[in-house]
């Protein structure tokens, strides 16, 4: 039992890491039907910028807003350069290539600026584990879970309660109608990209003390998060969290009970099953595309 608790806790911590990144995919999808495939790299840039700031003596907690600001600018940049032109000419797939391309460019830039090695991100919390229901948990893992939940809650509240958030929702529901109602949909989309990279950058500094920080850290995480977004549903914040936790727990438990060689398989099998049976994701609304 104790083992299972430990596996579940580790799975939740891992799953929340995936979920915060997947959340960024959901943000842009919900306004523009596009995804930022450079999400993993936005996370990596956030973590590395954060590391540099901490290295210059900035306090970890003070550094977070600065990194968020950086993330927002970076996201707006991606949207302006890579996504807007594609949306303008109504290209179905142009944004896929351009966001991937920008992601690769960011990675190369990071390699040149921060070097090639994985770096240690100093943990703001004690690194000694604490006991919880008989299992060991790192304080940092709790921070990741709490931080991720708070962040998603804040964004959801913003979307539901504020007038700007309603503009975001309206843009998703019907871009043309929203435009006719006087909403600057272009700005809303830029904003959603900024918000999406902001969350990624925030996720980066949140998880960096647990993972290692380096130019290549985003690739695998970005991909796993994509699987989470598909499993949970690209239109549902709730689905992202559940999807992340499912994938995380699937990885740790398979690793233990089956074989560590196969630990990535169940998550991906689940992905295939979800795609076959419920293409919009476990919690997603089935979107009917009108042609």
């Amino acid at each position: 039992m104790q083992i299972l608790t430990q596996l579940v806790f580790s799975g939740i911590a891992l799953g929340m890491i995936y979920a915060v990144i997947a959340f960024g995919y959901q943000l842009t999808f919900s306004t523009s039907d596009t995804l930022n495939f450079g999400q993993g790299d936005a996370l990596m840039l956030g973590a590395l910028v954060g590391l540099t700031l901490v290295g210059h003596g900035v306090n970890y907690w003070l550094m977070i807003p600065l990194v968020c600001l950086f993330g927002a600018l970076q996201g707006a940049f991606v949207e302006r350069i890579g996504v807007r032109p594609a949306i303008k000419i109504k290209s179905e797939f142009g944004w896929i290539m351009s966001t991937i391309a920008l992601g690769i460019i960011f990675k190369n830039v990071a390699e040149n600026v921060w070097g090639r090695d994985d770096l240690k991100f100093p943990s703001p919390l004690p690194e000694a584990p604490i006991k919880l229901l008989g299992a060991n948990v790192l304080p940092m893992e709790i921070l990741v879970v709490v931080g991720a939940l708070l962040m998603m809650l804040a964004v959801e509240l913003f979307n539901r309660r504020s007038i700007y958030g309603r503009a975001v929702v309206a843009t998703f529901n019907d871009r043309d109608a929203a435009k006719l109602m006087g909403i600057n949909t272009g700005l809303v989309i830029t904003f959603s990209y900024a918000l999406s990279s902001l969350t990624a950058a925030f996720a980066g500094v949140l998880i960096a003390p647990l993972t290692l920080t380096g130019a290549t850290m985003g690739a695998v995480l970005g991909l796993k998060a994509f699987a989470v977004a598909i499993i949970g549903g690209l239109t549902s914040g709730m689905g992202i969290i559940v999807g992340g936790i499912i994938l995380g727990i699937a990885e740790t438990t398979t690793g233990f009970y089956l074989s560590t060689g196969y630990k990535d398989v169940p998550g991906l099998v689940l992905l295939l099953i979800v795609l076959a049976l419920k293409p919009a994701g476990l919690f997603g609304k089935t979107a009917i595309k009108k042609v």
Partner: protein
Amino acid sequence: MMFSARWITATALAAASFAALAADPIKIGVSGPFTGGSSSMGVSMRDGVRLAAQEINKNGGVLGRQIQLVERDDEAKNERGVQIAQELINREKVVATVGFINTGVALAAQRFYQDAKIPVMNNVATGSVITQQFKDQPENYVFRNAAHDSIQAPMIVEEAITRRGFKKVAILADSTNYGQLGRADLEKALELKGIKPVAVEKFNIKDVDMTAQLLKAKEAGAEAILTYGIGPELAQIANGMTKLGWKVPMVGSWTLSMANYIDNAGPGGEGARMPQTFIQEPTTPKRQSFIVNYLKTFNPKNSRIDSPVSAAQGYDSIYLLAAAIKQAGSTEGPKVKAALEDLKAPVEGVVTTYNKPFTKTDHEAITANIPVFGEVKGQRVVYAYEADFKAASEVKVKDVNAKGALTQKK
């Protein structure tokens, strides 16, 4: 008679071309990962190579010609290694190539050198099969001056089982060629001691969570963990143990000395032990001058060479090649290879003094008696045993009869 006539013509031609080309540099390829998870080994190796080439060039070069390094980043990717091999052979026309950190890259790339009859000196990659790849061919162009896994695996087992008396051990290895070949060697070496590992677990490069692997080892009652992986993931293992509040000794392949293991594992990584051909201690005048010059030229963080073993072996690999080229009096692949297999003068290196390091059938310069155990202590790698440290000033030379290595399958 025919033979001698031809030989004379060849020598005359060689002499003529030598005079004509006297000013041309000797191009030596350097292939290694200078980016990514194995880069601390790749970069240290390259810097060791650079240092040796600089020294040789300062002293007039080889055969009156300067050494020119052609460095390429193989990113630890097999396909990049292959592209680089083709580029170095066909476009750069290198005389020889040193390098290869990653066993997989070495295996994929060195066949092109074999076909082109250009010697390859593996100075870091440790997979046992590397020098055996072309054993069945009449001429084998692949050499190595690193401690191969058939030496390292029994050393690790000897340390864990015999010296420290652990009965139950778990193996954690990564899913690359390096990790899996090493795991097989570890299992073989354990079998010789009549021991079966209580758990054998795998992890992927870039994995951030090792809970499942460690819990399995813990549940199986492992008293020590034997590792085969590279720095960042090894650090995640140490961090995972800290998290689980379960601390057993880590004994593993030489990669536990990588800077990115030591830095990322922090206090949790202390005490890990691994076989080392070189430890950053000025135990002989040659080692002292190497360390001083390396620190002066490349100025690494905290005066610590990121991967001292890679740097030392990289440095030595160039001296071995230079000695062979000098003895051959030529830069032609077959002649350099023949000279390497029969080096007349001993080559004083950092790791050891190479006295007839290679023969026609034996392309391994390092034997089981040369490596010692290092231990991570105070964020550096130091000698694990005081006795080894005291004896270090006496250079251990190659001993083909040294016991301890796994026998190679023919």
